[in-house]
């Protein structure tokens, strides 16, 4: 019993480690496979540009030293892995000499905040609607409306973002077009600031929720149909339990378990969607940072942001895996 759980923990941790390691390695290898190494290209641009780019000399020196171009590849790789694992991503080239880690540190809370809110809302709404699609006591109008809502499913969030922006920001000026808070309020712990943050967060969060709840709803629908036919649901009804109690404690409670596993598998896709939403709404999170870095060819930032987002995703999966045994006794006790 103890053993099974220990092995489960070890396996999860091993997967986490492997994911982070492989991602880091991919990020290192890919530019080196390119015929035009982006760093070489950048160095070339700077050398030819000479004095036209501010600080170009310092940047070049920094890059040369950082990537250890004069060392053999394994030294370069070792340097890279060591730096990455200590969150030392070097200095940004576009806003030299800001450390990349600092830029990421500024952007990360926005992304995590937006993502948590969006993911949790979408997971709850989606699963609830999916359950209602199957439940025999769902009011008739709901049964007709919910399937129609599935039209939004599997659209990329950028499209919903564009539509929502057009309707609620350009046409009806209800929500701000971009940013995370109004420039007129000071970023401090005040009511007006929090209000502004929420006001600005509604559209980005909604554009993620609108396109992803359907995924959960459809998955939940299939699971609920299975659970509905299970003997324990039949017995629950025969026990004369109240219908809502059966819905929550017998049906949803069991059907949600595979959904949570799916959640861990889906996080990667959801994070990618969020990056794009941030770009459309100019939300000062990791997505925007990444987009700006792509525009200015700021390679250290691209590398750092990609790594941190993958790390975040892998950690989230790990967390879900850790919490899973708490809600499924069959895993907890090593059944």
């Amino acid at each position, binding site marked *: 019993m103890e053993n099974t759980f220990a092995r489960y923990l070890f396996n999860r941790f*091993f*997967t986490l480690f492997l*994911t982070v390691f*492989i*991602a880091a390695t*991919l*990020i290192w290898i*890919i*530019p080196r*496979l*390119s*015929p*035009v*190494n*982006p760093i070489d290209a950048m160095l070339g641009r700077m050398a030819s540009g000479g004095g036209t780019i501010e600080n170009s000399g310092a940047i070049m020196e920094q890059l040369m030293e950082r990537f250890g171009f004069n060392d053999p590849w394994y030294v370069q790789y070792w340097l890279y892995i060591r730096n990455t694992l200590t969150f030392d991503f070097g200095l940004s080239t576009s806003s030299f000499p800001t450390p990349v880690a600092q830029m990421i540190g500024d952007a990360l809370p926005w992304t995590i905040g937006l993502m948590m809110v969006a993911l949790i809302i979408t997971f709850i709404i989606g699963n609830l609607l999916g359950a209602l699609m199957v439940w025999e006591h769902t009011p008739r109008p709901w049964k007709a409306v919910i399937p129609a809502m*599935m039209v939004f*499913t*599997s*659209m*990329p969030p*950028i*499209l919903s973002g*564009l539509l929502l*922006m*057009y309707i609620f920001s*350009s046409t009806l000026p209800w929500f701000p*077009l971009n940013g995370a808070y109004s420039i007129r309020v000071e970023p401090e712990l005040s009511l007006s600031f929090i209000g502004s943050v929420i006001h600005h967060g509604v559209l980005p969060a909604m554009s993620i929720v609108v396109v992803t709840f359907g995924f959960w709803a459809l998955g939940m*629908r*299939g699971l609920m*149909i*299975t659970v509905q*036919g299970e*003997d324990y649901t*039949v017995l629950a009804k025969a026990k004369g339990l109240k219908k809502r109690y059966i819905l929550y404690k017998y049906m949803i409670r069991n059907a949600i378990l595979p959904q949570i596993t799916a959640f861990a*598998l889906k*996080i*990667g*896709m959801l*994070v*990618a*969607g969020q*990056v*794009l939403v941030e*770009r*459309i709404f100019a939300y000062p999170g990791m997505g925007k940072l*990444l*987009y700006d870095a*792509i*525009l200015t*060819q700021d*390679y250290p930032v*691209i*590398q750092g*942001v*990609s790594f941190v*987002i*993958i790390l975040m*995703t*892998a950690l989230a*999966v790990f967390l879900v895996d850790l919490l899973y045994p708490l809600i499924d006794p069959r895993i907890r006790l090593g059944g």
Partner: protein
Amino acid sequence: MSDPTNAAAPETAAPDMAGLTKRQLKRMKRFDNPWNNPKLIWGITLLMGIIALGIFGRIFWDTDLVFTGAVLPSQAPVGFENLRGQVGLASSPLGTDVAGKDLLALLIVGAPNSLYVGVLASLIGMSLGIFLGFTAGYTGGRVDDVIRVGSDVMITIPPLLILVVVQASFGDITLTMMSLLIAAFVWQSPTRLIRAQVLSMRESGYVQMARLSGASDRHIMFREMLPNLVPYLFGSFIANVTTSIVTAVGLEVLGLGPQRVPTLGRVIYDAIDSAALTRDMWWWWGFPTILLMVMFIGLLLINLGLDEVSNPRLRRL
């Protein structure tokens, strides 16, 4: 299981058809042939529409109008006005962008391109998935461990980010190369799905029967197992097409992806980049968005239809 419906049907007296309305009879007939599924048919129709746009558009419209300055810039669609009060021209029925590209021509060239990327990436991903899933499920042992952990790891990594790194390093890429790159991230789900199915089928009665009949591994995999996987494979394929297009559009909207080939994502990128929203040039981003939505709704309907084909319990009488 205590399911009287199942038990009741075969052995009891012949059913009588009286007392059923015509509509019920029609629905029941549909129930008998799972492929005659309205969702499936509608989904296929929508996708055929996109393909038809690509084919007939090339015949009846000039695709050279996708180039910068081919037509008057910033024109509204026919029947609408732009902010300067100019009425849309019949020569550019869906309007033009700020660089003087014709929207209709962009759609005719771009929509099939987006579909092409999705289908190609998904095909490659599926082939990989079928190969790896069968290998893992059938061989078991170490090989299985490696493939399982490998797909667990790769499913966590958001493809978009690795693709961003690739793009930032390689610069411009072709449509086909983008498909190949996306394919590297869509083999995981089919691998997991097929592996699970193969594992359960391996213990099934008919596979044991085939082994008793002296069947080779190849026969068991391709003749006994694969045919029963067909609905799942279709479903997985369609889901992957969606994922691939979403990823491709995502890349394009970030301004990455092929730079010289018109795609729907690229058009949207240009629109956002040129502040089409504030200039009220809704047609610029609106038409490609609508086309993408049609594509996604079509794929979704096909997927829902396939779900009902492979899982009769989802079908309602």
